[in-house]
């Protein structure tokens, strides 16, 4: 939600409105947490790509096992060690040297890091709002109860 310049005093809201408000914040927090997790999985995948390139570069033999399925492998040999096909998205692949390929992945990882930071900031803000809503709601409940008690005595 874009930050709107109009401010609303939480204390002026009815309890039902507060509950609804809390529900929508909860949903937002859930949504953002999920996005954050997705970002982290994507990062791990990209890091695996870099490790694979490093492994291939540092290995002295050309032998490798080619996976046919996840449990069936064929022995093979790599002909070139400095040419990689990098998936740059939407079905396009580009032939790149090990250095360039790693650069692509590192760039992506950094971008994801920035996004994750932004998301974390938003999450912190949302949690603060959630806390203050909870606080006001609790206060209202206590007020309501004491009013009821007073009414019973009268």
């Amino acid at each position, binding site marked *: 939600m874009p930050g709107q310049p109009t401010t609303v005093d939480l204390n002026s809201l009815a309890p039902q409105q507060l509950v609804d408000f809390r529900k929508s914040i909860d949903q937002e927090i859930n949504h953002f947490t999920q996005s954050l997790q997705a970002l982290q999985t994507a990062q791990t995948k990209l890091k695996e790509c870099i490790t694979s390139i490093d492994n291939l570069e540092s290995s002295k033999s050309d032998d490798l096992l080619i996976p046919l399925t996840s449990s069936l492998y064929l022995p093979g040999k790599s002909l070139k060690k400095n040419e990689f*096909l990098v998936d*740059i*998205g*939407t*079905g*396009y*692949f*580009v*032939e790149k040297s090990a250095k360039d390929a790693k650069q*692509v992945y590192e760039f992506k990882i950094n971008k994801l890091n920035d996004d994750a930071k932004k998301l974390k900031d938003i999450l912190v803000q949302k949690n603060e709002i959630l806390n203050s809503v909870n606080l006001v709601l609790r206060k209202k409940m206590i007020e309501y109860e004491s009013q009821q008690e007073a009414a019973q005595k009268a």
Partner: protein
Amino acid sequence: MADKSQFEKLSLEFNEQQNTLNDLISTRSQLETQYQENKIVLNEFDSLNDESKIYKLTGPILVPQEFAEAKLNVTKRIEFIEDEIKRAETKISEEEKKIEGTREKLLAIRASMGA
């Protein structure tokens, strides 16, 4: 009684409109994902040149493609997606107006029923 049946009809309509709006919004966010992805690809193309070997994934096979052609394709696709986004947004605002109208009608009927 006429009020009551009309009220029910309107609230059904209201729900339906809200569902359409939700569908439209998810279409819009899908378009945004595609748009961002294509922009990343275009960025990547900017750092490449005619020498680069580019392949396009068609089904399970990689087909070699000329740099210029690939870049043109992606640029066109981005334009197409931009148009789609504009269309989706006009649809969304139209639907929002409709919902607002139905809501006002609902409130009016509820007020007259209460009276």
